[in-house]
C-alpha cells in the first residue's frame, strides 16, 4: 500500500460518534412517514404529501403555493 494514501475513515464521519438529530418536521399525518417503510437502496424517494389545510386563493397566489407545508420562503 502506498505510504501517502489516506485511510478512508479520515474522510467520513465516524459512525460511532453521537448522532446529532436532524429530523425533518413531523408531518401531521404520520402515514406519510410509513408510506415507504422499506426503502430500496440506490433509489430516491420524496415523502408523499397528504391533503390538509390550504391557503386562501389570494394568499396562495401571493406565496406561490396553495399548500402551507410546501411554502419555503427565501430570506433575501
Amino acid at each position, binding site marked *: 500500500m502506498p505510504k501517502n494514501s489516506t485511510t478512508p475513515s479520515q474522510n467520513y464521519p465516524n459512525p460511532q460518534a453521537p448522532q446529532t438529530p436532524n429530523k425533518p418536521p413531523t408531518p401531521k399525518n404520520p402515514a406519510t412517514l410509513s408510506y415507504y417503510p422499506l426503502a430500496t437502496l440506490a433509489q430516491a424517494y420524496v415523502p*408523499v*404529501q397528504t*391533503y390538509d389545510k*390550504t391557503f386562501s*386563493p389570494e394568499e*396562495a397566489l401571493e406565496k406561490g403555493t*396553495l399548500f402551507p407545508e410546501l411554502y419555503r420562503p427565501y430570506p433575501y
Partner: protein
Amino acid sequence: MDHIQMQMLRDIQKLEFTAIELTLYLDTHPDEQAPLNDYNKTAEKLDSLKMLYEKTYGPLMAYGFSSSPCPWRWIEGPWPWEITL
C-alpha cells in the same frame, strides 16, 4: 385599462392559481375526494368569473372558446406583457 378590469384580472389570477395547484396535486393523488371537491368548486367559480369578465372586456381565449362581437375583440390590447397598472 380601468381599475375594475384590473381587479377582475387579479381575481381570475387568484382562482386560476388555486386551480393550477389542485391540478398538479390531483395528478399525483388522483383518488382523493377532498382536493377533487375543492378543484370542482374552484373551476365553477372561475368559470362564472371569466364569463363576467369576457362580457365587458372581450375574450380571454380564442379558437372558439368564447364568442366575440364585431369588431373581433380577441386582438384588442393591452396584451398581458403590456399591462402597466
